[in-house]
């Protein structure tokens, strides 16, 4: 029973990062909460298959990711309108100036293909190594590296980030050329 108590404590501790991953993966807070709830239920039901001492967070992220992808495939055709409505609601929320930079980033992140987005989130934000991220995504380490790299390149393009300082508006068109020449 001690193991179980430790397991519960681990789940509790993982909640903020699970939820952050779910929100940034799905782009929708309500759906993210469904994902987190399903992840907790599934983790609980499969607690026996978790080996104490191994990385609980990686195990939980794997569950959440798998749930997200089976759900994503199912819902892909249903959500077009919903997406638009959600974006509209968010733009209303983004009223504070200090918040705008983050909102811009969020939108750019959402425009990435899901496989690149999740690779970047795992490695760049959630603190997993390339190896751990590869295990979570059930793919090769090289694939993760490639996806992270593509994600960064795409974000730099969208956000017009080019070197030490931000680009001025008139220099935006040059960013693509500068990058491919680098």
């Amino acid at each position, binding site marked *: *029973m001690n193991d*179980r*108590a430790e397991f*519960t404590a681990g*789940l*509790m501790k993982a*909640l*903020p*990062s699970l*939820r*952050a991953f779910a*929100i*940034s993966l799905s782009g929708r807070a309500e759906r993210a*909460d469904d994902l*987190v*709830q399903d992840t*907790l*239920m599934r983790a*609980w039901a499969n607690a026996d298959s978790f080996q104490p001492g191994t990385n609980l967070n990686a195990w939980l992220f794997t569950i959440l990711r798998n749930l997200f992808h089976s759900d994503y495939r199912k819902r892909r055709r249903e959500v077009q309108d919903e997406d638009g409505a959600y974006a509209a609601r968010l733009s209303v929320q983004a009223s504070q100036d200090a918040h705008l*930079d*983050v909102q811009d*980033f*969020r939108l750019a*992140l959402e425009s990435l293909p899901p496989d690149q987005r999740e690779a*970047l*989130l795992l490695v*760049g*934000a*959630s603190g997993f190594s390339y190896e751990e991220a590869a295990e979570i995504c059930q793919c090769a380490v*090289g694939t993760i*590296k*490639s996806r992270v*790299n*593509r994600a*960064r*390149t795409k*974000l*730099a393009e969208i*956000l017009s*980030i*080019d*070197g*030490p300082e931000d680009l001025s508006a008139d220099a935006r068109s040059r960013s693509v050329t500068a*990058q*491919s020449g*680098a």
Partner: protein
Amino acid sequence: MKRKQASAELENLDEELQIDEHIQRRIGTKLRSYYDELLNEPIPEKFVELLVKLDEKERQEGQS
């Protein structure tokens, strides 16, 4: 040295996608401030309640 090795690997994978170190750092900073906001959001009560409920159920089953 390590960086050279890493970038050599990446070159094999994505020759056309080499990314400047400054750009990488700036994106990293933006990503983390975006993510920190999410991490600092309050956790909905229902998750904690759910875990407490599951835990209680487990204890009861363990006792009977």
